[in-house]
């Protein structure tokens, strides 16, 4: 069965899917953290990626975007390698991944989403600043455009990050914990943005830690714990049994094998 799938590359990566992952394994310092992930994202849906800490949620996104090397497997976006369709994929990293004391304004950060379009060695001109301002407005942050980013609350910072991806006008959005540590109004603003994306036919894969809201916010769900536990429409897959499989402790065997491959004790 598996052998059969490998020979038929076309069916592994259907063109229609915004993101298809085939047999992906990722290792940090030779210790695998994600095993044999096979996943085809449905177009035009909001998908939650859930799993306990250290289950490889962030790794799945980063490895798809070629940010961490894959030990094996292949990834296609819209049927193509990522390098060819970068502009169609918007990435929202974890908020904690950058230094918010950095001397830039909210508008400057959003404009970074346009740097590829602006190109090498050219300054950010007025035209692009207006685009960035428009994106800030979509997340109700236009009034804060000139604020230095350390003077924003956590939720506001998250909205700025979201606006940086939105300004790119991508077709697929990969978001790493956008709901982490945000206030109620930001949470609602992000949900509204997600709904807006879906109704214009776009797809979003969102790493989500709040299991209580998965059913309310997302159409599809990916349950992850070092391997893919279950995936599909939320109402079918988001069951107690699956959650138990996902969150019921780390898989002892996989973990031990991983340790051994890394060459001994942690």
């Amino acid at each position: 069965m598996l052998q059969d799938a490998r020979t038929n590359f076309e069916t592994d990566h259907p063109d229609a899917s915004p993101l298809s992952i085939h047999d992906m394994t990722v290792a940090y310092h030779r210790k695998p953290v994600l095993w044999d992930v096979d996943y085809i994202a449905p177009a035009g849906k909001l998908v939650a990626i859930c799993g306990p800490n250290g289950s490889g949620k962030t790794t799945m996104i980063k490895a798809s975007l070629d940010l961490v090397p894959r030990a094996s497997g292949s990834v296609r976006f819209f049927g193509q390698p990522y390098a060819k369709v970068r502009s169609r994929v918007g990435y929202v990293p974890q908020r904690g991944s950058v230094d918010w004391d950095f001397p830039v304004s909210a508008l400057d950060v959003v404009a970074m989403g346009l740097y590829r379009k602006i190109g090498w060695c050219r300054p950010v001109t007025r035209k692009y600043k207006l685009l960035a301002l428009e994106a800030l407005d979509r997340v109700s942050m236009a009034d804060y455009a000139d604020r230095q980013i350390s003077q924003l609350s956590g939720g506001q910072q998250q909205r700025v990050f979201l606006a940086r991806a939105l300004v790119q006008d991508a077709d697929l959005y990969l978001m790493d914990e956008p709901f982490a540590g945000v206030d109620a109004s930001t949470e609602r603003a992000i949900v509204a943005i997600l709904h807006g994306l879906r109704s214009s036919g776009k797809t979003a894969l969102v790493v989500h830690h709040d299991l209580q809201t998965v059913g309310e916010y997302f159409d599809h769900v990916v349950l992850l714990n070092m391997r893919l536990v279950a995936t599909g429409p939320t109402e079918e897959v988001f069951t107690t049994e699956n959650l138990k499989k996902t969150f019921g402790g780390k898989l002892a065997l996989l973990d031990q094998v991983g340790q051994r491959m890394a060459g001994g004790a942690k």
Partner: protein
Amino acid sequence: MNVRSRSLPAILLLAVLLVSPSTLLAQSQSEPATSNRPATLGAQLLRVLTLEDYNTRVVLAGTLLLGISAGLVGSFMLLRRRSLVGDVVSHAALPGVAVAFISMEVAAPGSGKSLPALLVGAAISGLLGVFATLAIRSMTRIKEDTALALVLSTFFGAGIALFSMIQSMATGNAAGLQQFIYGSTASMIAADVKLIAWASAGAIVLCAFLFKEFGLLCFDEDYARAQGWPVVFLDLVLMGMVVGVTVIGLRSVGLLLVVAMLITPAAAARFWTDHLGRMALVSAAIGGGSACLGVLVSDLFPHMAAGAVIVLAGSAFFLLSLLFGTRRGLLQRLFIQWRLERRVALHDLLRSFFEFAEPRLSSDLGEDAMTPGSAPRGELAQITITFVELLAIRSWSPAQLRHALNQAEREHLLFPLPTGGYRLTDTGAAAALRVARNHRLWELYLIHYADIAPSHVDRDADEIEHVLEPELIDELEALMRTERPVAERPTAVPRSPHPIEETRV
């Protein structure tokens, strides 16, 4: 909108303005360097400030450009948290200088002191040092700081060993090489300065062209990579500039101090602006300024080494920025804190006034209590409270209370009655109502959103509207309406969500 990111042309302009006269200056080298010094200090000062000496002009131009480029490159290194890389490069450069000298002496005795060749040697071994650090960090469990310390001392030790070898060589007239350790501007010749000027100008132009790319790299490397920017290449260019600036700085400032030229101006600039472009410009200006000061002072007092004065001038700029900087400078922070404490004391006083009066008010606070001329506002201004009564409301000392009362009186919020006791003015009554409303909205907020509150608080804001996002205020006011039906309008003062006695701890 605004005039941001005009900084790119500005940097270019700066580069062009500085490069052109300095290269011209360096080319007109027919004049011999004068060494006869006038007797009086005043005459000397005049001679130095008017740049009478050809030699001073040459050294000044070269060092100024070095200061500017180090300030620019240093800003990026600071933001990329690579401040110590310059230190590794400079220490690791020493064996390169020695090896270059030895190989040239072996090839053609007497040719060993050519600066370009020595600097090439320095750059190569400086880069080796950086790669050794990176290799140790990524291939072993040793952390970056340990790797830096290891590489730095190993290379430096090798350099010193080679230097002592050179001194014992038959052809080895190594006296000049000591300059690379402590630096020496006075003995620089026009050709040296030309080299320094070109290298600095190159770094300045690169910074100007790749400004946006370097900014992105420093802020969010992963995002830059996801967008398809060649992160490794950009990092190498940045590293190359650090190596370049460090190596040319060796000659004038010396390897022990060159890292200060990279880092001090950038660290000082951070206290003046929250904008990357302006930070780079301020840093370049501070770098250039300290370089000028260093050269001029050491020209005036020939016993002072220019390198040391440059670094000390940079440190003085840093100290001034730390104290007086407009972006979290020490004095500004102290002032803000002092102002905040004053305001908190005033607010506590007004709220105590209100809480004392609240049970005695007959008019409804749920109506438009906050609007001018409202019944509660008028009533509030009619209530008298004594010092003793106020003292009992909160846990403040008589001195603190008296201080707050004096302050409120100065601001015409209340006035003492001739018969004893205090009354609020109409402005004071309005302020008391507003303070109480804000306080209670805030309490509602903490009760309902306590876990996210800390990240949200701007303690410097006077009104809750300035602290919280508008949507959240709407939500809180809705909450007030449902949970405290007495407060039906946003202008109303809600009841305290807890018994008042609890605050009198």
